[in-house]
Each structure stands twice: as structure tokens, then as C-alpha cells.
């Protein structure tokens, strides 16, 4: 029973190191940070084609991740895709009303994500607003089709 003190200390260190490891996985590997938990600025955007965009895809501004896509559904009125995204409220507050959203592709075959670009209008977007100016995904098949039909002309 004399050794049980060091034994319990060993177990304590083991559990503690495990928790630290989990924090490492959270911060360094999955890129969570305490400041970014405040992603409650909701924006909507309608696209005629979302290509390979998925829930949880990134929303970026100038290449920096500022939010995530939280929902994708078919708008029953316009029959196009309605994308819901949650972005940092600090960023959201500074987006003008004529901001645009485009679906971009990282690399030639990489994942698809949304890129936001702010415009010049003096009025700012509010949480829950819809972005009007959108640019749909580039679908490779369509591109090739256009290319081929241009060639044959």
C-alpha cells in the first residue's frame, strides 16, 4: 500500500495528459478556437447550381474561413438551391447589402466552398438577410460542353 501514492499520481497524470491531448485535437487539428465560437450571424443565398457544396462546407472571405454552411435545401418557390450559412458576427456586420457569394473550388478537383465578396453600398447586411448577387458552381461537364460546342461552330 506504500506505493499506491505514486500509482494514483501516475493515473492522474495519465488522465490529465489524455484531456490535454483531446484539447490539442480540438484546437490544433480541427482548428476550433475560443474566439470563433460566436458564429451566429445567419445569411441565406440562392444558387441555381451548387455543384458539390455540402453542409459544413467552408465560407471564406479572401480565402480566410469565416463560417460554415449549415443547411442546403431546395427553395420551393424558385426551384433553386437555398443555402444557409453561419458566419462570424464581426465579419457579418461589415458586409454591405450588395455583397456577393460565389461557389468556388479549391484546386482543380478539390472541395467546393463559398467565397464572399463585399460590395460598396452604404447599408449593411443584417443577420437573416439573403444575398442576392450569387454565382453558381462551375460544373466541369458544362464547361466541357460549352468548349466543345464553341469548337464545332
Amino acid at each position, binding site marked *: 500500500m506504500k506505493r499506491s501514492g505514486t500509482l494514483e499520481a501516475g493515473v492522474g497524470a495519465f488522465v490529465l495528459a489524455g484531456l490535454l491531448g483531446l484539447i490539442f485535437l480540438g484546437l*490544433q487539428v480541427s482548428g476550433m478556437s475560443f474566439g470563433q465560437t460566436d458564429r451566429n450571424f445567419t445569411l441565406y443565398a440562392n444558387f441555381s447550381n451548387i455543384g458539390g457544396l455540402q453542409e459544413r462546407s467552408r465560407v471564406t472571405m479572401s480565402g480566410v474561413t469565416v463560417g460554415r454552411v449549415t443547411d442546403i435545401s431546395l427553395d420551393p418557390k424558385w426551384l433553386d438551391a437555398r443555402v444557409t450559412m453561419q458566419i462570424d458576427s464581426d465579419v457579418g456586420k461589415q458586409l454591405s447589402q450588395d455583397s456577393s457569394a460565389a461557389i468556388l473550388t479549391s484546386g482543380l478537383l478539390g472541395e467546393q466552398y463559398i467565397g464572399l465578396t463585399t460590395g460598396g453600398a452604404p447599408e449593411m447586411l443584417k443577420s437573416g438577410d439573403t444575398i442576392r448577387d450569387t454565382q453558381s458552381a462551375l460544373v466541369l461537364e458544362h464547361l466541357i460542353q460549352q468548349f466543345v460546342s464553341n469548337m464545332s461552330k
Partner: protein
Amino acid sequence: MMSPLIALGRRALDLLEALGRSAIFLVQSLCCLPRLQGFRLWARQMYFVGVLSLPIIVVSGLFIGMVIALQGYLVLSGFGADEALGQMVALSLLRELAPVVSALLFAGRAGSALTAEIGLMKATEQLSSMEMIGVDPLRRVIAPRLWAGFVSMPILTVFFSVIGIMGGYLVGVDWLGVDAGSFWGNMQNSVAFFDDVLNGMAKSVVFGLVVTWIAVFQGYDLVPTSEGISRATTRTVVFGSLAVLGLDFILTAMMFGDF
């Protein structure tokens, strides 16, 4: 003529009976949560089951992370996509390799030791004499070991992932020259804490429970002879590993498959 049929039927009944016995055994061991005194017993088992498994987990994690980085680099650099290396290392470790490989190592290292220890206690009548003293061995001997296995498995998996990612970084960035920023950046963009990290943890909790359950049940249920102990130890490793691999498929389908 009938005898193969009879033999098959008998085996099936034996198997069902063993499954039923082990289920009753699990419920009886876990139903009564250990009290304060049980905490010390649990801590003691955490040491034997968890802390002593650490070296093999750390070393394996390091090498597996290094190998993935090496193989991944060879494939990815063919597409000019070597900055996706971090993403590949992290996802394959977090989702699959860390839970599965550490559970397999755990079955070999801690599972077999548990079976042999409990089997020896049974063979030397220690369990019987504990019963005669009026102490339920299920609570005193089995329950702390089950809880210890259950808790230490996810912790070991965290160690495996962290060390594996470090190993991947070592090979990918320090040796092969992938850019450190894109290594971490790609990883952070593609790994989701809840979907990838916590699902991997959930897997390892299930594996920990199943492997420890198999190990202590094999020890408790064995024929108390030296041959019985060696057979039960082998069975723990074989059944434990098969259960981990089978369950991994099912859990992966449930967690990451879109049905």
C-alpha cells in the same frame, strides 16, 4: 447421419448459452456503481490497464503516423496535392486507425493480461474464497477492471492520434518538406471536431467496453487449469480483435455513411 446435425445444434446452443451468461455477467458487474472504496480499486486498475499500455500505444502511434505521411506523400505528390498531406494523416488517424489499432493493441496487451490474471485468481480459488468471505467478486474484482478498460481506451486513443499526427508532421514537414502552414491549415479546414474527433472517441469507447468485457468474461468463465488459462488468453485476443474489426465496420457505416 444425424451426428453432424447434432454437433452443429450443440455448438449453437453452447454459443447462445455463453452469450447469455456473459450478458448476465456484464449486467451484474456494472449495475451497481462502485462506491468511494471502489474508486481506489478502479484507480489501481487504471494503472495496470491504462498507464502500462501507454508505451506500446505511443510507439505504434508514432510509427503509423510516420508511415501514413510517407505513403500519402508518394501518392499525393503525384497529383501535386502534397499540401493535403495533413488532412490525409489526420482524417485517417482520427476516424479509423487510432480507434482500431489502439483497440487491437489493447486487446493484445491489456486484454490478455486481464484474462490471465482473473483466470489465475479463479484457478487458485481466490475468487471462491472471496465469495466465502461474503464479498462479491463481480463487484470487487470484475467491476473495477471493466470500468478501467472502459475509461482508459478513449484516453489511449487520444494519445495514439496525437502522437500519430506528430509523427506525420515529422515525416511530412521536417523530412519531405511539405509546407507547415498548409499541413496544419488543410488539416484544420477538413477535420471537424464533432464529426471526426468525437466520433472516433465514441468508437473507442465501444471498443474499450467490448474488449474489456470479452477479456474479463473469458477469465471469469474459464476452466481453472493451466491449459484453460492459456486457451482463454488466446480466445480473448482472437475474439477481441474480431469484435473490434466487425464493430468498426458497423459503426463506420452508422457514423459516416449516408443512408
